[in-house]
């Protein structure tokens, strides 16, 4: 009996929603503060920013590649926008624009490496390598800019900019509004444009994409630019939210990005998955982290517990896929 795409997706996401709810109930019981308005506000504010990052990662993985750079791009762009605002006194909109432009440049480098410097073969290896390079170099540059010191961006100096990360509008944290806009655009691109079909096609079968006349290089190029710009946007919002840019911001976030994507049901081989799954995945991942911290679990155990839950979740996903087949 052929199973439709919708039936499968519904199954993964219902499971995720149930898991997130169960987690909230559990942590709420263990530490009632977890469910306080202030706490939930903070969680969703930060999850929204991580969600923007994770959606960028989703794009790359859907197309059959992988991106290890989100953490370092977030760190670097956070420092760059902070420096532009506080040292060079650049106007906030221009500062954001220039920082996003840096994101475009980073993405273009990733795209260039994976398309020109390697033939149209499966791109896991080239994309792994070039984004790993960015992970290392980007973090290095972020540290080097201020020799390790943070850059302050206070609400007094930059009221509008800090509002973008820390403010509330229509009852929602502003980053959440940004996330909703980003998600709407991404969903439109993936499901209502030829470009989206090409991304899924390349991820599903390189041969099918090639004989169909899809411009594989151009599609891949676009995907890496989109992801780097989204990572940069996340970096900008974190600086706005924290009122400061730290060279170490974003360390380890690539793992959050990839785990969220995997938990969300996006196949790491490419071609399958949804942004919704990713967003549920990132909510799950970050809620676990926050919940463990708030219930005073030892920081050493936090990583272990998070890791075990992630492996379990990814395993369930894979098992489901095999069973369906």
């Amino acid at each position: 009996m052929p199973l439709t795409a919708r039936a499968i997706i519904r199954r993964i996401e219902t499971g995720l929603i149930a898991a997130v709810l169960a987690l909230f109930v559990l942590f709420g019981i263990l530490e009632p503060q977890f469910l306080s308005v202030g706490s939930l506000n903070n969680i969703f504010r930060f999850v929204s920013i991580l969600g923007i990052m994770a959606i960028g990662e989703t794009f790359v993985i859907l197309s059959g590649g992988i991106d290890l750079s989100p953490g370092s791009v977030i760190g670097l762009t956070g420092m760059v926008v902070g420096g532009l605002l506080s040292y060079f006194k650049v106007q906030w909109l221009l500062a954001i624009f220039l920082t996003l432009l840096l994101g475009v440049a980073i993405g273009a480098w990733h795209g260039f490496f994976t398309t020109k410097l390697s033939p149209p073969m499966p791109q896991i290896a080239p994309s792994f390598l070039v984004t790993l390079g960015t992970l290392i170099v980007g973090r290095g540059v972020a540290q080097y800019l201020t020799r390790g010191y943070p850059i302050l961006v206070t609400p007094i100096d930059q009221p509008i900019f800090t509002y973008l990360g820390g403010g509330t509008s229509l009852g929602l944290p502003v980053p959440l509004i940004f996330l909703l806009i980003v998600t709407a655009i991404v969903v439109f691109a993936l499901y209502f444009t030829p470009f989206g079909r090409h991304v899924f096609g390349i991820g599903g079968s390189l041969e099918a994409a090639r004989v169909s006349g899809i411009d594989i290089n151009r599609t891949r190029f676009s995907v890496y630019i989109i992801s780097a710009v989204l990572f940069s946007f996340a970096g900008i919002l974190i600086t706005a939210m924290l009122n400061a840019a730290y060279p170490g911001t974003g360390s380890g976030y690539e793992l959050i990005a990839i785990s969220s994507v995997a938990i969300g049901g996006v196949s790491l081989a490419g071609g399958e998955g949804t942004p919704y799954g990713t967003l549920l995945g990132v909510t799950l991942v970050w809620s676990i982290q926050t919940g463990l911290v708030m219930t005073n679990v030892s920081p050493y155990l936090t990583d272990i517990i998070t890791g075990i839950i992630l492996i379990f979740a990814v395993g369930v996903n894979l098992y489901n896929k095999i069973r369906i087949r």
Partner: protein
Amino acid sequence: MSSLEQRPLVEMKGISKTFGAINALQNVDLTLYNDEILGLVGDNAAGKSTLMKILTGVHKADEGKIYIEGKEVTVNRPSDARALGIEMVYQDFALAPNLDVIDNIFLGREETKNLGGLIKVLDKSGMRERGINAIQALQVDMGQFDSLVRFLSGGQQQAVAIARATLYRPKVIVMDEPSASLSVKAIQRLLELMKRFKEEGISLIFITHRLPDIFSVSDRIMVLRAGKKVAEKKITEVTLDSVIKLILGLT
């Protein structure tokens, strides 16, 4: 037969192709006329698939020229071939397993409509209608069109690949080992379909190891051996035996 007086539909002249140290094709000519089925046979690595991939733009010939209806053309990529009305049904179908039937039929040639005059959006209902028509014309039971291609049987997947090839009324369809993953019944249906295509004015180049199938539908037959053309004859001028001898080089 009138094909001798017609101008050929497709002419490939002096095609040579090397892959590293391997001489895949050496100075091969191929002629295809209107309203005919040309059987292309040869042992493994004779160069049949390579020759066809050159025609359909997947490979580029090192030497040689291609003419369509008398005019010289360049085919650098699959979209060039499609634009010239040449389509191919690949041996392993070359479908995206993670996409549904309609997505695969239109992959790379998605139809769009204007949303509010500004944005180009996928014309999903239009594609669905045209895709369903293309499949139904093949008279294959597809089940649900929303099925992902990976859940379809070999015959159904091939129907999708054929529907993709017939979407824009091509002049030529190349079929590379189409019987490979099919049941006996499906193979019979396929041969009937190929005769129907010919009646509708589409010429076919038919690569297969199953020689009886060639004799069942082809008008002419071309034999390749080790990268060279060794024979090109009307089907009435050969027998199964003589073809086998030509393929193996025993004469």
